[in-house]
């Protein structure tokens, strides 16, 4: 039995050697243009497989990055479902700072309200004003900037300072000139305008100092004010906050950090989640949908590639049917001939994949990294992670091998004499 296996292995290597000689000579002596064209088609297929999905996923990935980097941080804590605030915020923050992984912490107070622009022209209380529903976020501008680099996203005016009083920074989604949606945007306000904040029963006149546009929906719909001032408006005496965004040092593990907080029972004071877990559900849903969509489009590309290779190999094999017959006639095994066509398919696929990789990592990805696509809700990048790309390359490889094998098999299994005589 062992000798039988050994004989089969030996035979396989002979088939491989003969197949390789036939394939290499075939490729070498076929027109360069034909080989180039087939390789080019394979490259386009590979790009279709990677780039279309990469942009679709990258589009939502940009939004995820924006939400995580500019709002949630690596670990995000908000109140438990039955609470309004994170209990004993100060003790929790002290503990967080005691951990070596902590890079920055932003403690935020939030309150729902309305921002009105033309409130001075209002005659009747019922008059419709130029206003929008907003979330007012009380922040420590320095801590916030350290955590989310919010100052980098100021598109008009200036960033808040701790000394600013009666000054706010508004998100771009609140102003019509940045987000031209008729309802729920303020049309007449700009930097320097005076607006009125209505929060619960309280009201406060403030001046717009700056506008931020981060492409994180949760940030761009907010009005930022110094936390001390918001607490004053709310009449809030304690320091219990609504949000704590924690940024960890590079390389630190968010899950591990979260676990430390849980182990120290802080999960009874607030809802502790990693940045990824705290992402809005719709973002995760869109990510999943785009992933499926990308895979469907990639799958269609794969089928097209397989059909292309099938046709190329079939035409090649059928036009050489006579020679295949002769090879079989002189004793060359059908398996060796089939292998020669599989090797040819692999060479075409390999060439296409290599060219595609060079285009992706040498051209397209660096370009998109430098020039993200300016979508309204995110900066679209190209997601082309190495494991994902390698997996798709493998899938294309296998599909191509099968697509090369089937037509070769069809032609090789025909009667030898009929093939030789062209019957």
């Amino acid at each position, binding site marked *: 039995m062992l000798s039988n296996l050994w004989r089969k292995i030996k035979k396989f290597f002979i088939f491989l050697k003969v197949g390789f000689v036939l394939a290499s000579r075939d490729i070498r002596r076929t027109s360069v243009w034909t080989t180039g064209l087939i390789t080019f088609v394979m490259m386009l297929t590979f790009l279709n497989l990677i780039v279309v999905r990469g942009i679709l996923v990258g589009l939502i990935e940009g939004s995820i990055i924006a939400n995580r980097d500019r709002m949630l941080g690596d670990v995000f804590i908000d109140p438990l479902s039955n609470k309004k605030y994170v209990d004993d915020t100060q003790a929790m923050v002290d503990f967080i700072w005691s951990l070596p992984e902590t890079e920055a912490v932003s403690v935020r107070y939030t309150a729902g309200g309305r921002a009105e622009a033309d409130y001075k022209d209002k005659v009747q209380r019922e008059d419709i004003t130029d206003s929008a529903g907003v979330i007012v976020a009380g922040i420590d501008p320095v801590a916030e900037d350290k955590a989310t680099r919010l100052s980098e996203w100021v598109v008009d005016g200036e960033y808040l300072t701790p000394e600013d009083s009666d000054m706010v920074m508004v998100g771009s989604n609140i102003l019509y000139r940045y987000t031209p949606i008729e309802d729920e945007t303020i049309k007449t306000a700009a930097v320097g305008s005076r607006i009125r904040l209505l929060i619960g029963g309280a009201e406060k006149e403030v001046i717009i100092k700056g506008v931020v546009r981060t492409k994180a929906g949760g940030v761009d719909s907010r009005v930022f004010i110094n936390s001390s001032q918001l607490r004053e408006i709310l009449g809030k005496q304690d320091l219990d906050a609504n949000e704590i965004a924690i940024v960890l040092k590079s390389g630190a593990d968010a899950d591990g950090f979260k676990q430390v907080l849980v182990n120290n029972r802080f999960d009874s004071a607030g809802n502790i989640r990693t940045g990824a877990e705290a992402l809005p559900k719709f973002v995760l849903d869109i990510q999943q949908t785009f992933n499926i969509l990308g895979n469907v489009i990639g799958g269609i590309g794969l089928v097209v590639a397989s059909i292309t290779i099938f046709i190329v190999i079939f035409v090649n094999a059928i036009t050489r049917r006579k*020679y295949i017959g002769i090879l079989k006639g*002189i*004793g060359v095994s059908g398996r060796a001939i089939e292998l020669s066509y599989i090797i040819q398919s692999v060479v075409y696929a390999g060439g296409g994949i290599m060219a595609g990789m060079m285009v992706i990592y040498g051209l397209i990805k660096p370009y998109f990294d430098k020039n993200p696509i300016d979508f309204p809700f995110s900066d679209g990048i190209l997601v082309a992670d190495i494991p994902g790309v390698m997996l798709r390359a493998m899938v294309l490889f296998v599909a191509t091998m099968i697509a090369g094998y089937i037509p070769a098999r069809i032609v090789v299994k025909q009667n030898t004499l009929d093939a030789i005589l062209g019957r």
Partner: protein
Amino acid sequence: MIKVKKLVKSFGSGENELIVLKGLDFQIKQGEFVAITGRSGSGKSTLLYQLGLLDRPKSGEVWLDGVELANSHKSLRTDFRLFNLGYIFQDYALIPTLTATENVMMPLLMQGKTFKFAEEIAAESLARVGLADKLKNLPSQLSGGQQQRVSIARAIAHSPKIVFADEPTANLDSEASENILDIFMELNKTGQTMVMVTHEPDYAALADRVITLSDGTIVADERGRKARKKVTQSRK
């Protein structure tokens, strides 16, 4: 070396069945140069395909080197073809993407010989047929006669027990044809068993033995000398 018993080959079935070989019986000894001749449609090529294991008969037996192969398993027939038989086809049947050397190397590589060894043997074989200076030429860069010589080199490179040639001179001019036949006779002198199908009585007469077919039956089986005499007489 070759023993044929009650060999029948037909095409089609039922009312449309056409019997091409009608129960042939003959033997060919080792080292013989046998020409199979006959008019077009007499069944000579069909007989060669049965002897060369390229086709299966309807009934009967084909014994090659003591092994019955007409009714044996496909893999045994393939292996037997690879190690023991050589073929020369009418239209040379060279692979256009392979050089002369590579064409000759193919059966050797398939036998499991190393690339270097196969290359050396192929070069020797090509030198034997006078193509030592055309080793790297593709078939398209060779004349018809040269291509047929490559085909002969391929047929003999692996030292087969029997060489089959199907109308090897049909596509060649008389000078190239004579050249090919000279090679055949040289090969035969070294003890090579050869079976050649030809419709040319002049060329058939050069063989040791001439089997003449007509309508699927053997109508003559004579020594080459006798056949040569007949050819000469018919010319007079």
